[in-house]
Structures are given as C-alpha cells and as structure tokens.
C-alpha cells in the first residue's frame, strides 16, 4: 500500500495548467523530497492532496482510500505556506483549537507532546503574532503533528529561516521522520538539507512529474567523478580530453573527470605528459548537482 497515489491529476488556473496529468507515488514510511523550480506545481500538488484546491481531473488516493475520506483525512497534518494560526491567540490556544477539532481526548498532554517535539515548551503562552518566523514555522509543524498523523505534508518548511532556524528545523524534521514513523512529503529548494533526510524523491517540472526515484536509485544514478588539482590546469585538461569524454573545469580552478572511477589511470596519464597532480579524490555528485544537470538536460530537450 502506498501513502499517496496520484494518477493523472490536473489543476489549471485561468486556462494555465499548474499541475498537468501528474502521477505520483509515495510509499508508506517514506520521506519524500518533492523537488522543482518555482512555479513548477509543488505547492499546488500539495494543496490538492490537502483538499485545499479542487482538482480539474485525476485521482488522489491516500493509504488506499479516496483522499476525501474523513477517516484518512483525520490522520493528515500539513504546513502549507504558513502555520494557519490566529495571530492574537496564544500558541497554546491555537494548538488547543486544532486539538478540539481533531477530537483528541488528552488535549493538554498532546499539546505538551508536540511543543516538546518542536522545542517550544517555554513559548506556549506567548501570542502567535509575537513569534519569530522560525518559531511560527515550528508552531505550524506542531499543529500538523497533533493527533498522531500518518501523513505529514510540509511545504518549504525551511524557507526564509536564518542559519540557526534552519539548523533547529532540520533537527526537528530528522526527529519527526526518524522517530515518529509517519510518511512525510517535504518540498524544499534547499536540496542539500533535503538530501540528508529523504528516502525518495519526486522531481516536478511545469506541472508534470519528470522523475520519481528512491535515494538508493538516486545514489546509483549519481555520476561518479574524479576531482583533481594541478598547476597547469588548461594543459592537463587538454591531455585528459584525449583519453576521457567528459572533463570539466571547476570554479575553484580544479578539474573534474566524470563517469570515471580510475584515479590511478588519470594520475599515470598526466604524469606521462609532465603534469604533477597535487590533489586527487573520488566523488559523487550530490542531489543539487544531479537536479541541476537533469533540469539542464530537460531544458535542452524542450528547446
């Protein structure tokens, strides 16, 4: 059973498709990194899953049930755009209202539990409007965590946060994803952060899902490359190009040889041609580079 199964989902605004026949599969227990450019349709897809928008066409199933089923919806938590709290009410009052809405029995206990998860036990009685952006995002997550959700949908939870806020948020997300056993969909532009926690990825472009893959698949697809440093970079590059197909200059004045796992061979070729290698190491491209590479290929295909 999948936590989310979307088939041919479409949503348009004034004739323009924000989501265009999108298919998406999120396995139960996955931490699904939802990646795409601005305006690619990530937030719209998440709003459709949350029932905030009415789809033009397509099917959304959550845990095998129709997404409008109250039984499954009661186990969905979301942070979309903002926390959705009343500014003049205290943090506790806002959480209390959601706890009442969910019909929770031990409301105070549950509120204390989620406040502890988001490290906000001491801020329960301050007004929501007095909270910083980072605190508001954490309160939004606390709201979403009320009532033991089986599915969490977090739209750009790290966006706009400073370094400290981002660090705290990452710790919270790791905590939630590792220790509370719910399926999580996170959209984020900060791919380096996402890479640390995601088990699956979905890459969306112009409202269409262009690729879905697990972290393992991602790892196997990620190009291996050899990075090296030498004094005469241009000369070394010319030599390497005679033996290897994909050799690139890097911004820091080094060289990268892609799709090759032959450190010794590279060193040997360069030495034979009078180039001394000062540093050399094997690496794999990260999610961010993979994504940029993929997008540039898709962009080239489109033109």
């Amino acid at each position, binding site marked *: 059973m999948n936590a989310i199964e979307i088939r041919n989902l479409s949503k348009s605004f004034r004739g323009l498709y924000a989501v265009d026949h999108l298919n998406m599969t999120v396995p139960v227990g996955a931490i699904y990194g939802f990646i795409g450019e601005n305006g690619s349709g990530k937030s719209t897809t998440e709003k459709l899953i949350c029932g905030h928008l009415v789809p033009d066409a397509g099917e959304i199933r959550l845990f095998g049930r129709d997404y409008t089923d109250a039984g499954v919806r009661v186990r969905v938590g979301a942070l979309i755009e903002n926390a*959705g709290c009343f500014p*003049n009410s205290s943090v506790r009052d806002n959480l209390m209202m959601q706890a009442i809405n*969910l019909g929770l029995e031990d409301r105070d206990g549950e509120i204390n539990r989620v406040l502890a998860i988001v490290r906000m036990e001491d801020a329960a009685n301050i007004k929501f409007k007095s909270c910083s952006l980072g605190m508001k995002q954490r309160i939004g997550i606390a709201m979403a965590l009320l009532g033991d959700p089986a599915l969490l949908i977090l739209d750009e939870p790290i966006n706009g946060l400073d370094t400290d806020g981002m660090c705290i948020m990452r710790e919270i997300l790791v905590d939630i994803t590792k220790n509370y056993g*719910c399926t999580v969909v996170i959209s984020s532009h900060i791919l380096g952060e996402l890479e640390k926690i995601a088990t699956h990825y979905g890459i969306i472009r112009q409202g269409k899902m262009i690729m879905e893959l697990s972290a393992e698949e991602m790892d196997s697809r990620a190009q291996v490359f050899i990075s090296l440093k030498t004094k005469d970079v241009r000369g070394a590059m010319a030599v390497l190009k005679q033996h290897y197909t994909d050799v690139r200059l890097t911004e820091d004045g080094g060289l990268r040889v892609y799709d090759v796992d032959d450190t010794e061979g590279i060193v040997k070729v360069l030495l034979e041609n009078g180039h001394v290698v000062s540093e050399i190491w094997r690496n794999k491209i990260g999610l961010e580079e993979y994504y940029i590479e993929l997008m540039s290929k898709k962009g080239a295909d489109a033109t």
Partner: protein
Amino acid sequence: MTRELQFETPGFAKRLRGMLGVDFYRLFHTPMFYIFLAIAAFIPALIVGTTGMQNPDGTVTQGLYTNVWNAVAADTPLYTFHDMGGYANMNMVFIFGGIMVSIFIGHDYKSGYVKQLFTTHAKKQDYMLSKTITCAFAMMGMCITYLVGAIAAGLLVGLDFSVNVGSLVIAVLSKMLMSFGWASLYTFLNIIFRRYFGISIASSFFFGTGILIIGIGAILGDTPLINVFLYGSSVYACLGANIVTLVVCLVCSAVWTAVYQLLGTRILSKCDIY
C-alpha cells in the same frame, strides 16, 4: 520506525462536535464577541436614553419611545420605513450580527486557519453548519444583552413598561429564532466573498439592514407576503405577536437556513478554499 496504520472514520456527530468545539472556543476567547454583546446593550440604551435629555437651549429632547418595549419591537409589523422609532429595534442586532459573522469567518481565511480545518477530517457542510450555529448563538446572546440594555435604560429614564408579557416573550423568542436564518445568510455571503473581507462586511451590512425588503415593502405595501423573507419575519415578530408569529418565524428561519446551508456547502465543495 513503522506503525500499524488504522483509519477510523469519524461520523457526522463527532465531526460537528469537533468543529463546534473549535468555533465556540474561539468565540469565547475572542474579545470581539464581548464587544458586540456590549454594543448590542449600548445601542438601545443610547436610543432610549435620549428621552428627556435637556438640550442646550433648555428644551427637552422628544424620545423615540414612550414605552420601553418599543425599543425591542414595534407594536405592529411595519415592513416599510415609517420612522426611525419603528425601524430601530431589536432587529438591529441582525446588522451587528452580520458584521460580527464577517469578522469571525474573515479571520478564518485571513489567518489561514481554514486550511488547518480542511486538511483534516472537516467536511464543507460541517463548516457551514458549525459557523451558522455559533454565530446564531452569538446573535441570540446579543438579543439578550439588547433586551437588558433597553430595560436598564428604560428604568433610568422612567419609560412606561406596560406590555402584554406573552406577546413580548413570543416576539423576543421569535427574533432569537430568526438568528439562525440570519447567521446562515451571513455565513453564505462570507463564503461567496471569502477572498474579499471588505465586500463580505459590506454585503452583510447591506442585507442586514433589510433595504431590499423595505424596497419590496414600499412597492407591495405592508403585506404578510413579506414574511417569506428573513427581514419580513423579523419585523413580523412584533409586540402583537402570538403563537402564529412563532411558527412563521420558525418556518422562515428553518427554510432559509436549509437553503443557505445547501448553497454554501455546494459552493465550498466546488470551489478552491482560497
């Protein structure tokens, strides 16, 4: 960490209980509710309190009423606008109520809280019904404080209190019943104009004043046909009320509540939340 997943579908009663719980919690925790209760008490006090006041030139202001209960309801149903005294009675609660409902629902959308509600198990009909019940309750509260304000001012000014108690009780009860119809109308208007807070308030105020129905009354005259409208039935609940008045108000309020519930639920279901 994996967990066994169990999905228990909450029934209508449980869903509505949750939604009502939230709305009443909000109502009682927001100063706005108490401000509107105070306004509802202050307005009749202001109107009645002008009676007998001395002007700077030494003359005495002629009050709108000689009998305090005229501040609550007119002696007979006056659908058209004859004078301020006939218009300015407990029906004004429904104007303030409209503004209060606009603010109450507007905050749901402005804060984004409505997203939290609809992300979880809440259905669109639960939202409509819960808002109607909560706001009707608030308007009934305003009817009571209006009554208290009128009595207090009447005692201070020394107005006549003679009345047919049975008719008065029926008139007040009938107006309180009308709160459901009005709350349903305002909820519906605020659902339509959910993206435009200012228009929501303006439309609530416009319909609350009963201008449209007064206009119809001006054309048709003081005919009981106007009782099919919320404003008509609200006016019908006058000091000459009897059990028929109560039934008319009950039926009118119930029918319009049902109509607006259906329409509002339909709009919410077919349109994006925001």
